[in-house]
């Protein structure tokens, strides 16, 4: 994807500023809660985009690292009694390891086979979580299964404002990190592997290693989102590993624009807030959600932000001829022919 055209540089800053100001208009706790969940799901959608967008490996099992981190947090704090920060760090590492594992298995495959393999791995994890009663809690009954496992949190009822700003900070940091990665040397190589694996390999790129790297980085960020989600909800349940969650991340990326990282974040925020925040009657909500997907995908098949970016770069003069804005670029040396 062309590096940032001037047009798109301004908008994320405006968006973040707006979200920082929003709580000052004293919305009720419900809206803050919806925003907080929205930020976490947006970070999760962006982490999907690292795997599905930047490295072009469409994964339908991205709930696996998310849920693995959620369950790790719950088990480590409630069962093993670890302090929260340690548990969260371990959960993110576990998620990254899970990602590396998936990456290793799926590296030789491509196209629909990757989607199917990740879908099957995700469903296996979901079945294991639903069918397993892990251990008995203090009350003598078993934890786990569809009831899930509670997380022992140091705070009792987090104030909606603190969780709102924590989630917003996490989203900004996470997206910034993922954007940096997608525009780094490794990100460039991943986009090359996604574009044409054979040419990348003929350029000396060990594609299996880089595909695994994409899965590992994406899974690490997904794990962080999963840990954040379980801290906010207070419980890890089998739904954190469900197919619906994986499909949701892929849907947000499709609507937002694959490979743009910002696209899935914006799509996740807008779709989540519109359909959970407006508390529409259930059937109207689902119908509207499905129709919005169909309409946006029909008219912006490349994703809303993806299309907006291309439109802006065409509007902003002949991009082709001008080098993109780059801080501190050295003058090109006198190339000897």
């Amino acid at each position: 994807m062309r590096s940032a055209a001037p047009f798109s540089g301004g908008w994320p800053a405006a968006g973040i500023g707006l979200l920082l100001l929003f709580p000052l208009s004293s919305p009720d706790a419900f809206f803050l809660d919806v925003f907080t969940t929205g930020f976490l799901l947006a970070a999760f959608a962006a982490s999907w985009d690292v795997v599905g967008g930047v490295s072009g490996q469409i994964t339908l099992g991205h709930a696996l690292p998310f849920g693995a981190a959620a369950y790790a947090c719950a088990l480590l704090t409630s069962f093993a009694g670890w302090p929260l920060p340690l548990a969260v760090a371990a959960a993110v590492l576990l998620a990254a390891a899970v990602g590396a594992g998936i990456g290793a298995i799926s590296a030789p495959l491509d196209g629909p086979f990757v989607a199917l393999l990740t879908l099957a791995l995700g469903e296996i994890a979901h079945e294991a979580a639903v069918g397993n009663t892990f251990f008995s809690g203090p009350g003598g009954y078993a934890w786990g299964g569809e009831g899930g496992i509670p997380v022992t949190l140091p705070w009792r009822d987090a104030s909606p404002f603190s969780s709102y700003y924590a989630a917003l900070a996490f989203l900004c940091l996470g997206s910034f990190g993922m954007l940096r990665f997608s525009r780094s040397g490794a990100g460039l190589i991943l986009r090359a592997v996604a574009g044409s694996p054979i040419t990348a390999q003929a350029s000396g790129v060990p594609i299996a290693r880089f595909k695994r790297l994409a899965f590992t980085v994406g899974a690490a960020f997904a794990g962080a989102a999963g840990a954040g989600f379980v801290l906010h909800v207070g419980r890890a349940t089998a739904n954190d590993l469900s197919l619906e969650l994986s499909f949701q991340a892929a849907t947000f990326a499709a609507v937002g624009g694959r490979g743009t990282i910002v696209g899935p974040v914006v799509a996740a925020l807008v779709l989540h807030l519109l359909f959970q925040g407006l508390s529409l009657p259930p059937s109207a909500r689902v119908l509207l959600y499905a129709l919005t997907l169909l309409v946006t995908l029909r008219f912006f098949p490349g994703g809303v932000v993806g299309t907006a970016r291309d439109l802006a770069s065409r509007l902003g003069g002949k991009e082709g001829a001008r080098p993109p804005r780059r801080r501190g670029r050295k003058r090109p040396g006198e190339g000897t022919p």
Partner: protein
Amino acid sequence: MTVIPRSLPRLPRLLIGPAVLLLYLFPSVFPAPPCVAASPPAPLKIGVLAPLSGPYAAGGTSFVQAATLAVEQANAEGGVFGQRVTIVVGDTQGRVDVAKAEALRLVSREKVSALVGAYLSEETVGVMEVAAAHRTVLLVPVAATAEITDLVRREYARYRYVFRVGYSLPQWAEMVAAFLSNRKVRRYAFVGAGIRWNLELGETLERIVAPLGIAPVYSAYYSPGNPAFETVAVAAAAASPDIVILADPGRNSVSFLKRLRESAPALPALSIGGALGDARLASSVPLSAPVYVQAAAWRGVSPAATAYVERYEQRYGAPPVGYSDTLPYDAVTVLVAAWRKAGSAESAAVVSALERGAFSGVAGTYRFDAAHQANWGAGPGALHGTFVLWERGGARIVFPPP
């Protein structure tokens, strides 16, 4: 959207325009904080939380239908302290994060006086946290996990606002054990979806019936993802039990029963509440052997029950299934009775009223123990539920004998 000219200073200019616009827009989205109510006293609101979309929509819809009926009944009896009672519904979608968010909406924005819900165990434990944080009375009609009452017992100060109207897993097993011994069953098969709720129910039932000389000859938990019904039905039939207990209130119970009737036409079956309480489903299953259904209450258990079933059928076109509709009906009835007894909808008063009082509902008289669990079970004075037998014309109550 004109492209913002690049020459202007970047960030502040960008921020002010859209920020002002959206801040102006957003406050208009939420209703202005309610000003002092000068008009007639606002109605008393009950927040109802149930899954109305997704795989659990069937149970959630009958949940809300029953709650609506109970509120109409309360208003027909003159409402509470002269105020009308209304319900505000939150769709939990079968997910704990949505259940918590909707509970927050009902409590913080809709300002409900009490909550009734939710449907699944994980949803309910999530809603408990919101109810405890906002000191709002929460009546739990359906979720049977022991975690709910255990939290009330271990942290009474925080969770004392939570009361469970429905039966807990041990009570459920106790009632089924009473039925099995009444039917003189010696060997039973226990089959259901491979979820924790079923595993616990199976283990508790086995523990309770052992001293009665009743033992399971086959137990199987199929995976909801790929329920191998035929194999389980064949295996259950091969074990030749006296009865097959089907612990799956959902849609799989119908599919499984059809397979069982194909593999063992003469094998009696007991469905633990839920889908098979629906007359339309029961009529599609061959009655070559008895089909018993366990329910909280049924037509004919008491005059109140009969009136409720007739009003439900007249209002919604089909009689209640006796599980995910009757229990929420009783939950709302108990709540309204507690309000009247306490003389106010204020949580502390309602809690003490519920802890000490006895409230009559369709399934019988509700009393709550120290862990705020309603007194279901097989003992004297307990709510014992009903076991009915489907026959050509309809269902006949077989246990406990009327």
